[in-house]
């Protein structure tokens, strides 16, 4: 229990949270996060999160899925069990394209979801920040800034957060 937990500050407004977050980052804290009921892009920027890896995963998966689909169609139709179907050639590429395209989209979409969850470290049902008093309002109308300080630094973090304008309360969570 004495292990250093997170220090969480509650704000009523997004702008206050963003300002506090910027101050915390400027103070050199590395392991910081912010929570709120809707996306605030500036906050994500300050934390240093970029969305593009999700897109990269989706595009990569789409290309892979499409290639697998086309490859499977080609291999199974041309090599594994070739058959004369209506006088069409074995490798009837125009007819292989629609399914390839659709399957590529399917892979990309599934990868976007899974990639998002993976990058977010979800699902994670238990998280220290949930223990912060009043944190349920992070899903409603309040904003939180959290710092995960190294051992012995908790008081410094707490002090910094308390100093932020608009900080309604600052708590330590185990």
């Amino acid at each position, binding site marked *: 229990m004495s292990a250093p937990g997170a220090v969480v500050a509650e704000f009523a407004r997004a702008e206050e949270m963003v300002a506090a977050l910027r101050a915390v980052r400027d103070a050199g804290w590395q392991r910081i996060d912010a929570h709120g009921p809707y996306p605030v892009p500036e906050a994500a920027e300050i934390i240093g999160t970029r969305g593009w890896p999700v897109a990269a995963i989706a595009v990569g998966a789409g290309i892979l899925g499409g290639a697998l689909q086309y490859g499977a169609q080609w291999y199974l139709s041309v090599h594994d069990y*070739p*058959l004369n179907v209506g006088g069409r050639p074995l490798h009837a590429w125009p007819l292989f394209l629609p399914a390839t395209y659709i399957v590529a989209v399917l892979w990309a979409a599934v990868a976007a979801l899974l990639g998002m969850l993976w990058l977010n470290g979800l699902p994670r049902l238990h998280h220290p920040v949930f223990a912060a008093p009043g944190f349920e309002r992070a899903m409603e109308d309040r904003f939180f800034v959290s710092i995960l300080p190294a051992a012995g630094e908790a008081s410094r973090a707490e002090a910094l957060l308390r100093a932020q304008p608009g900080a309604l309360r600052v708590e330590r969570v185990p």
Partner: protein
Amino acid sequence: MPQHFTPRADGRLRLALLLGLAALIGAALLAFVMVRSDHAWAVGRPAPQPIPFSHALHAGGLGLDCRYCHAGVERAAEAGMPSASLCLGCHGDVWAGATALAPLRDSLALGAPIPWSSVHRLPDHTRFHHGAHIAAGAACETCHGRVWEMPQTIKVRPMSMGWCLDCHREPEPRLRPVEAVFDRDWQGRPPPANPHAGGAVSPLTQCSTCHR
């Protein structure tokens, strides 16, 4: 605010997700294996027969040729089952009064076929010609196994479509010279080339080759 979930809940959820995924993959693998199992194709399972006939005794012990009883095998679609009178040709003298042979005598009296249970029954939608396979150099043993060693006749191959295709796609290594088709201890080498294979779509893997 209290935690909704204990720290262990995450482990449990991840385990559950992992197990679910494993179960899915496992079920697929199990299905893959099961449908290929000997059990699914009744391989090795003897059928109940009206007469306790032993190939091991007749073909193995006495050395009767396959064609002695299955006379149509070289020219007809069906290899043919021996008539009761053929059986009784010997069994008029040997084991003449045995109760086990009663179906033979009934068959002869009524002119009805002996109700053997088929061990190598193929579905109605397949066309199989014994004569054609013999002529191509497919030995009895290749499909039926070492029947002359079987006290009870059993299937040794699944006779699934995939199994048929395995040979139809690449018959050469499984064929013999036509003279050796009935040879039980043949050790030679397969003939060099199959006359029917070839082309963009091999005639041997056309649907109409085996399906009617």
